[in-house]
């Protein structure tokens, strides 16, 4: 068999070279290439005697500073959410005003069931999701800017030391940061992680990074329960996600998927001023998924919710599940239903509330209705938000995880551990919080 002969000959050659040089042949070959290139460079490239310090170097001295790096990163992240909320607020108000007008117009349609389907089901449910689209688009603009300027790579570099401590590499952090946008492309981006163990752990914890679709849920509840501290409360969701991601990555690495983490150089591309077109194109590419989902998946979900509600089935389903979450304070059948539909897509939670509480619309927006109808306190709302943050990734994300891990075992493991984690953390927050409030 000539193929085995080749492999044997290769192993002999490698052994021989290792003995003679004390280096792997791979290193010798790479050295030869670098040698060729550096010789070539001497012939073709003339650099000025004293290299100017580039703008990139100047900015990096501050951004990558040993002590300031992480605080700057956190400040930028906080700025992103403030920007997202402040800019989107007036746009959301316009959209809501338009939707209210539309709901008033259609609620009179006869027969009455059709009026209810259109006004409560579709406009109440899909409209509730649509009204938060500006937040998602603005978040994507901000993330595009961070990525296209080259800051995202710096963030990964700054986090590299911390990532090593939990057994991962800084490059994993780029994947995790992309998880702030959407878990699906983030999980796919894990391909750049060379070490297969690093990659698996990164994929498993990516869903803990709060994605864009969860933002409408936070926005809805934060506006209703934490008027003065909306930005801070939403930021705390992202922070809780990151802290738990770090803890679980460390745990998985230690207990389940041990092994050396990869070592390689972190690439720091020069800073670039992104063009408006590029940023808008990236925003559109990512945001389009949400817009089209509002017209398809969310539309279907709210019609189903409306139907099940109309025939009094929904309440039975909700009541069967709800007791499980009583320990976390949100043991109402409506929130149980919202959680079930949230597995289809996280923003469907908003759609479900929108449909369920559509009849009771007030000037304060339907967010405040949740408080009165469900008897929630700010503490319950906060516990519910952490549940949304942590529990089962949406079906699209699970599909991506299955595709990339090529394993049902790890996909189901993700479902199980995120659900358990969400329940435990929400329960802890509610129980411990109840002692103090």
């Amino acid at each position, binding site marked *: 068999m*000539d*193929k085995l*002969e*080749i*492999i044997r*000959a*290769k192993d002999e*050659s*490698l052994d*021989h*070279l290792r003995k*003679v*040089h004390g280096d*792997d*042949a*791979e290193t*010798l*070959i790479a050295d*030869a*290439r*670098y040698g*060729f*290139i*550096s010789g*070539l*460079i001497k*012939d*073709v*490239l*003339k*650099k*000025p005697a004293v*290299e*100017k310090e*580039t703008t990139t170097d100047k900015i990096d001295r501050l951004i990558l500073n040993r002590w300031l790096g992480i605080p700057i990163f956190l400040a930028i992240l906080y700025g992103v959410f403030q920007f997202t909320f402040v800019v989107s607020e007036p746009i959301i108000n316009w959209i809501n005003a338009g939707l209210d007008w539309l709901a008033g117009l259609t609620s009179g349609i006869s027969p009455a069931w059709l009026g209810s389907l259109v006004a409560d089901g579709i406009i109440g449910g899909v409209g509730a999701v649509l009204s938060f689209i500006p937040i998602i688009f603005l978040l994507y603009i901000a993330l595009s800017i961070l990525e296209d300027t*080259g800051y995202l790579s710096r963030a990964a570099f700054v986090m590299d030391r911390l990532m090593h401590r939990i057994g991962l590499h800084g490059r994993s952090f780029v994947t995790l940061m992309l998880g702030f946008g959407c878990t699906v492309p983030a999980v*796919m981006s894990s*391909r*750049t*992680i*060379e070490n297969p163990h690093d990659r698996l752990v990164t994929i498993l914890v990516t869903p803990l990074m709060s994605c864009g679709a969860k933002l409408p849920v936070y926005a809805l509840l934060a506006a209703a329960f934490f008027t003065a501290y909306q930005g801070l409360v939403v930021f705390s969701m992202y922070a809780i996600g990151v802290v738990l991601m770090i803890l679980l990555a460390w745990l998985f690495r230690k207990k389940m998927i041990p092994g050396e983490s990869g070592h390689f150089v972190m*690439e720091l*591309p*020069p800073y670039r001023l992104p063009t408006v077109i590029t940023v808008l194109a990236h925003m559109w590419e990512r945001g389009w998924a949400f817009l089209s989902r509002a017209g398809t998946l969310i539309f279907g979900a709210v019609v189903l919710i409306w139907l099940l509600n109309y025939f009094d089935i929904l309440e039975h389903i909700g009541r069967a599940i709800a007791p499980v979450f009583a320990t976390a304070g949100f043991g109402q059948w409506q929130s149980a239903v919202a959680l079930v539909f949230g597995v289809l897509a996280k923003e469907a939670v908003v759609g479900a509330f929108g449909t369920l509480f559509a009849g009771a619309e007030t000037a304060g927006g339907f967010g405040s209705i949740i408080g009165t109808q469900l008897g929630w306190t700010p503490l319950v709302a906060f516990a519910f938000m952490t549940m949304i943050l942590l529990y089962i990734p949406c079906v699209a994300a699970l599909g991506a995880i299955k*595709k*990339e891990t090529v394993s049902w075992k790890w996909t189901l493991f993700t479902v199980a551990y995120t659900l358990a984690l969400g329940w435990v953390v929400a329960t802890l927050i509610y129980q411990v919080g109840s002692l103090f409030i």
Partner: protein
Amino acid sequence: MSKKQITVALAGNPNSGKTTVFNNLTGARQHVGNWPGVTVEKKEGFCNFQGNRIRVVDLPGVYSLTAYSLDEVIARDYVVDEKPDVAVDIVDASNLERNLYLAVQFLEMKANLVIALNMMDVAESRGYQIDIKELSRLLGTPVVPMVASKNQGTEDLLELVVGITTGNIQVSGINIQYGHDVEEEIAKLEKLASSNSLAESYSPRWLAVKLLEDDREIIKKIRQT
């Protein structure tokens, strides 16, 4: 003038401006699919130049052509298996030394390579002087200066692409010497590899080098023959 279709593979390091060059070449005529067998995004586009229809395939941005990441394997396999008429390597002129590592590996594969020396404006603003003629001579492959962000050099690039397919421009390539000891082992393995069926699509010398790099994809392929 012949109206044949030319396939161009666009390669380059991340941040070399590859996407901008791709957009300059194809404009709005792009579509996105997946690479066969994997879910990595594959972008393709078309442009017409001097009566030729040119199909541009955007390869994943990579630094090297080893088998360490999926992106590298995709880029490499495309050039070997699909044999594009021309491979264009976008090289960041302000970062010449590092970017050439990829170009050298394409030349080792005997690809029909054109080097697009992008970001010439950045290089010049730093006071770098690049002898393009000499670079082209030493690498045995045409080199075209570009500023993709200002859409400069796109036509020159297309002219080189067409020139290579008509045979007016030759790519002679390079033969890197890996040192006496390594060369000895390469010679042994090259001889064995030339009798393997893989030698139909890969050059035996390249196979020998990859074997010495302990390249897991190539070893897998040999086991499958």
